[in-house]
Structures are given as C-alpha cells and as structure tokens.
C-alpha cells in the first residue's frame, strides 16, 4: 500500500474504491448495505455523532468499521477514502464539505443541502466527472426529475407541482428537521430540469398501516398536450429509472384540462429495507450508481496505478 499517495483526480486506483458513510440513520444504514453489495465499492467506515445510534450497531453487524466521531473519523484515517457519502443532515453538510474538500475525494451528498452539483442519474449522469461534490437532491427529486425533464423536452410548462408522500416509518429525524431544505432543493432541481420557475413542492408523511408505498404525484401544466405523447415520454423515462431502481412504477398518467398528472410509486427491492421505503431505495441506488460510475471512470483514466495489498 502506498500510503503516501494522495487521492487526487487522475490518480488511478484499483477497485474496489474505499468508501465512508457519514450518518447512521435510515438512509446511512441502507446505503452502507448497498455499498457493500457493490463490486466497485468497499464500505470501510460508517460514522455518526451519536454513539447510541441504532444504525451504528447495525452497521457494525454488517462488518463495517464504525465510529461516533462524525466527520472527524473520516479525516483521522491514515488510509484516505476515495468516496465519502454524506447521509447526515443538510445543516451539517456545508461544514463536512469544507473539511473534506482538501482531501480531494469524491463527496456524494444525500442530504438536501443544495451545496454540490445536483445529480439525477437518469437525466445528467454524464456531467459528473468535473464535480467533486455531487448532491442527490432528494428522494422525491430522484423520482420526479426524470419524468418532468422528459415532459419538458417536448412541452413548455407554465407550472409544475410535485407532491411526495412517504411512509412515516421511512422518514428519520434528520429529514424531519430538514423539511424546508427538502422542499427548496427539490424545487430548485425541478426548476433546473423543466426551465420554469413556477414550481411548488409539497411533502406528506403517511401514518397508514400497513405503510403506504413511497409515492410522488406530479402536475405539469402546459398547452396542447397529447395523452399518447405524454404517456410515451413518461414510460420511456420510467424505463431509464427502472434500470437501477426496479421497483419504480407509473401508477397514473392522464391529461385533463391542460394538466398532465403523473403519479409514480417506488417499492424498495433487493435489500433489507421494507418494500414501502422506496424513498430510501431510490436515493441510495442513485448514490451508489454515481459512485460506481466514478469508480469506473477512475479505473479508465491514465495515471499512477495505486495497488493495494
């Protein structure tokens, strides 16, 4: 191991890349599981600020090294990480980014901080290489932006509305404290992908039992929309998302009075999280996908081969 090598852009590493996760809430824990399943990534650390976080114990059971020192545990290592996932809290992310930026690692931010470059893989996955801080927007953003971007490629919207409903059991404390950031970051991503500033975002938490499947309802107001064209655009976009989120389904797609109404639901699949928690599945699958793209890009770049023991 060449411990003296700093991981800067262009340094070529052997796979799998070393990953750390900040945050051991619902998102952080599921993310750690998904990273462990990836052939391109190795989850070397899960760190939180609360020693008693149940997610830390679960992460240890997964075989990850855990710490209650938060971002300091990431900085303290002699063996730097290639990728750091921030699944903590939108208000904590700016300080995390400030601490991590000098390390040169890729930062993948799952909080709705809005700090980094917004990434929705099915739409702008090809813009990643130049950015060191990638923001995954929000779970609702991951579900709605591909659909709304597709509709906007054909129709010019005058107003767009997105209503997300998540099962209360699938929404942890950090998200509950970050509702304003969630709404704003999702709104900004929708604005950027549709070209209209007239965007309203809403979030409901459902207490239903059995828990309601994660759902995102979109209203897209425009002129002269054709039901069949809208249907084709929506289903093509859904297919692109389904490539990495198999539980993504279109539940409604209608055009009434100048408004295309599209509702999608996301069932989580393939992990230990319950099927209703599609919100966790879609944002974490997107995060792992962009990290894997980065890993492959690193492997194909000319540069110093860094070998591992």
């Amino acid at each position, binding site marked *: 191991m060449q411990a003296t090598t700093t991981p800067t852009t262009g340094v070529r590493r052997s796979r799998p890349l070393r990953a750390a996760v900040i945050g051991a809430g619902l998102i952080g824990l599921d993310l750690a599981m998904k990273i462990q399943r990836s052939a391109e990534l190795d989850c070397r650390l899960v760190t939180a600020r609360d020693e008693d976080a149940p997610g830390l114990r679960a992460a240890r059971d997964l075989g990850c090294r855990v710490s209650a020192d938060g971002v300091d545990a990431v900085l303290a290592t002699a063996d730097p990480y290639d990728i750091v996932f921030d699944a903590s809290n939108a208000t904590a992310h700016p300080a995390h980014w400030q601490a991590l930026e000098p390390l040169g690692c890729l930062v993948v931010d799952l909080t709705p901080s809005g700090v980094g470059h917004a990434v929705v893989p099915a739409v702008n996955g090809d813009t990643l290489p130049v950015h060191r801080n990638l923001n995954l927007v929000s779970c609702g953003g991951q579900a709605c932006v591909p659909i709304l971007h597709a509709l906007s490629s054909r129709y010019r919207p005058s107003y767009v509305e997105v209503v997300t409903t998540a099962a*209360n059991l699938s929404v942890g404390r950090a998200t509950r404290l970050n509702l304003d950031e969630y709404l704003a970051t999702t709104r900004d991503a929708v604005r950027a992908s549709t070209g209209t500033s007239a965007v309203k975002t809403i979030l409901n938490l459902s207490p239903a039992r059995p828990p309601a499947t994660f759902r995102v309802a979109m209203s897209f107001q425009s002129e002269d929309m054709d039901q069949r064209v809208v249907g084709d655009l929506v289903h093509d976009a859904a297919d692109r998302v389904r490539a990495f989120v198999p539980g993504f389904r279109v539940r409604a797609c209608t055009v009434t009075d100048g408004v295309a109404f599209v509702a999608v639901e996301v069932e989580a699949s393939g992990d230990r999280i319950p099927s209703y928690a599609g919100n966790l599945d879609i944002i974490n699958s997107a995060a792992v996908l962009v990290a894997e793209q980065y890993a492959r890009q690193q492997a194909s770049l000319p540069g110093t081969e860094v070998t591992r023991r």
Partner: protein
Amino acid sequence: MNEAAGDRPAVRIYDPTLRDGHHAVRHDLGEAQLRAYAAAADRARVPVVEVGHGNGLGASSLQVGRARLTDDVMLSAVRAELRHSRMGAFMLPGWGTADDLRMAIDHGVDVVRIGAHCTESDVTERHLGFLRDAGVEAHATLLMSHMCTPAQLGRACEQMAGFGAQAVGIFDSAGHFLPEDVTERISAIRGAVDVPVIFHGHNNLGSAVANSIAAVRAGATIIDGCARGFGAGAGNTQLEVLVPVLERLGYPTGIDLYRLLDAADLAERELMPAPPTISSESIVSGLAGVFSGFRNRVLDVAAREQVDPRDIFFELGRRQAVAGQEDLIVDVAMSLRTASL
C-alpha cells in the same frame, strides 16, 4: 382587551373563519370579504382572527386548491382591519416553510400555529423554534386527532410544548368525535402539559358545540369557532353559538354578543353562498374519519368518474388518508370504478 365587566376571559376564543372557511369556497375569498369580516370580528372583540389558505401558509396549489389571493395580500388585508383582535396564521411543515413564517411576521402576525398530523408531532420542532426565536406566540396543533389514542396525544403535546409551543392541542379534522372522546383526549393532554390546551371542532356528526363544551370542562382554555360554522366539510364549531353557550355556563369570553351576532350575519351574507350543512357526504366523511377538507374534491372526482362519493370517503378512511393526500382521491375513484365494471 376584555371589556365584559372586568371578568378575565376563562376561555380564549380563536376564530379561523377566514382560514378554515376557505375550504368551503375553494379558497376563493377576495380582499373586500376578508376586510369586512375581520373588521366585524374586531368590533366584537374576538381575541384572535386567523387568515390564510385553508391548508395554511404556502399551501396554495393544484393539490389542495389555489387561493384567489396570495398569503401576502390576505395578511395585509386583515392586518389593516384589526384594532383590538390579534392576527393568527397557520402553517403545516412540508407545505409551508420558514420563508412563509418570515413573510407573516413581516405582516405583523401575532400568533402562528404549526400543525402536524397527530402521529408526526416531531416535524413541528424546527418551526416552533423559529417562531420562539422571532418572539411570535407559537401554538402547536395535531390534525386528524381521532387517529391517535388519548395517551399518544398527551405525549405528542408534551413533546411540542418541549419544542417551545405556548399552547398545544387537537383538531377534530374529520368531525369524528363525540363529547366523551373529547373529554378523554383533553384530559390526557391536560395531564401531560402545563401550557394552555386548544380544541378545534368540526360538525360532521352534529357534535361540534357539545364537543367544545366537553373540551372546556376537561380543561381546554383556547377554543376555535367559525362564524356560521364556515369551514371544511360540514363546517366548524359555530362561533356565535359557542360563545353565548360558554357564557351561560359561566365561562367568560370577553366577546360582545350583539357584535358577534352582527359579524356572523355579515359572514353569512358576504362570505358564503350558504352556511355549511351536514350533508349526506359529510356524515359519511365524519363516520369514515376522513379529512373534512376533502369534500369538494371528492364530489368533483365522483361526478367525473361516476362513482358514489360515499364509497370514496369510506375507502379513503380505510386507506387512512391524511390531510394533504388529495392526490389519492383520483386513485381511489379509479379503483372503485374498475372494481364495479
């Protein structure tokens, strides 16, 4: 503020006519209507006059209906008419944000209520903290409170008081309660908190005034009422009935009866095509425990999809839909239509 023979009001009346009433008229009140009622309520010395979209600050949307006026215009209009009454606003986290609270504060709002579905009281933490830091009176209210046990409501209210709420309480958003249900719940909340307790009734099962009296007897000291019951579904607790009934029972409110009756007459004349009645659909809605504000949307969708609106209400109740989930109405109607084919 109280001019009723020096009596200290035992019950503080809170008047959401210009907020909850918006549900009854598709959020379509105009500026002159807001001003006229606010001035009338002010003359009657109603302690707090709340204004806004039916679902609160920032809620105007296709999902729950677009308001004719912006929040900004509504707050300006009412503020200009209040000399004695304080101005209230309502906000649901997930719908409105701290930006909306800032805007309301700039308009001189005196009291803001942060609402949450009854099982999700922790979402109020950040905005209650924001209001306290801003020095605005902050209340916290639990919606659809029939979906929780009395003990759960007590714990949720205790949590919100811990977040800084200066009054806490429950909305009977579906109009599902009978008086003994209210007694149990308010008693549990009184036992859990030291701050004043709020009750907000709906009249789907004809019990709103009786429920409010039960709440007062169990220790609630802030009671909501709307002129002519102007509000979602079958309407709210009828303000001009509630106040004299409380007075007769020995709970002074500080409100001038004749002026209050004048305000109610004005409301009937100026704000609504007709006072709310307990329609057949509203009875079903109350029995099913569905948010009263769904009424107009359910009726629209039922007519379009040719299904029985009563079936839609019962199915929404079965799915435990909460306020804000209006997008489910179409799904439910479609599935009922498919099932009937």
